[in-house]
């Protein structure tokens, strides 16, 4: 995403698209593609299928933009489309799982970072395994995408208290796992 595009807020981009500037949609695609791809990988565990999934999600969002009532933010609305599409397709793909860490980074992570990351992923995976699959995705949205409880509720329809309790347990497990490792 260019610096100029990064300066364009979601609202401004939406206004431009609704006024007929089709190219402005690429700003939103670039801004949210990582999140949608990650959800896609969680559902399908396959790079090509995840890309097809993400493409369909963006096209569905584009087709529904004129009817987007702005009762939630665009990112929450888009995540809801992706979540519903993924849940509907889950019978074909099996259980939702977080994406393994396979980074192409400018620098190599330190052994300490690598350890922390794998511990966090293991904890997240274990926490998800203990949950019904509709709820498992909540942890990914919280930990990987930094979404707030209210936004996750708006995207998935799962009550805030349920999300809170799963997140609380996952954080406690992560802390205990790190403490045990250190001891």
């Amino acid at each position, binding site marked *: 995403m260019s610096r100029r595009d990064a300066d364009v807020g979601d609202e401004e981009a939406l206004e431009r*698209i*609704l*006024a*007929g500037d*089709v*190219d402005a*949609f*690429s700003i939103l*695609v*670039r801004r949210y*593609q*990582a999140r949608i*791809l*990650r959800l896609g*990988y969680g559902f399908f565990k396959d*790079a090509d299928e*995840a*890309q097809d999934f*993400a*493409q369909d999600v*963006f*096209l569905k969002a*584009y*087709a529904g*933009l*004129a*009817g987007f009532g702005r009762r939630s933010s665009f990112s929450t609305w888009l995540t809801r489309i992706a979540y519903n599409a993924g849940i509907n397709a889950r019978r074909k793909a099996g259980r939702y799982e977080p*994406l*393994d*860490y*396979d*980074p*192409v*980074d400018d620098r190599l*992570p330190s052994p300490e*970072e690598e350890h*922390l*990351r794998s*511990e*966090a*992923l293991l904890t*997240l995976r274990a926490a998800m395994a203990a949950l019904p699959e509709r709820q498992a995705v909540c942890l990914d949205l919280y*930990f*990987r995408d*930094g979404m*707030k*409880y209210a936004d996750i509720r708006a995207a998935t329809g799962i009550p805030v208290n349920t999300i*809170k309790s799963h997140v*609380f347990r996952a*954080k*406690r497990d*992560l*802390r205990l796992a*790190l*403490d045990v490792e*250190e001891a």
Partner: protein
Amino acid sequence: MTMECDLFLARLDSLETGRLPSDLEEHAAGCVSCARTLARVEGARRLLDVSPAACLVDLAPRVGALLPFMPSARRRVQMRDWLLAGALILGSMAFVPFLADFSTLRAAYGNRFVVPLGLVLGMAVTAYGAVFIAGHLDEFSKRWHVGGAVHR
């Protein structure tokens, strides 16, 4: 580990964002063990945010190439608003015979102007209806097919 540490860790687990309230910050500043736990947990969480290589694909060209084949995302007036506006127009027309100007015109010209007035109003309603139907052909067509499928 003190009771305060237990409380600190329990509250740390229940925070929604990474922002620490001032009393927790104070405790962490004075407790080496809790500060170390805080740093490790936050460090681990931050590392989860790194986008994996598989998510670094740029979908914008791929999606952009398909947009010309999609229905336009241009803003359009919702059907509900169309119907409300139509009802408002019809309601307003029903009030025309009760206007003071209408009575004045009738007193001056008798009933001769009622037919042209009716024609003008009728043409306005017809034009509105035509624009409404033309603007919602896709929607009517979809509803027609869905209704047909349900009956079958």
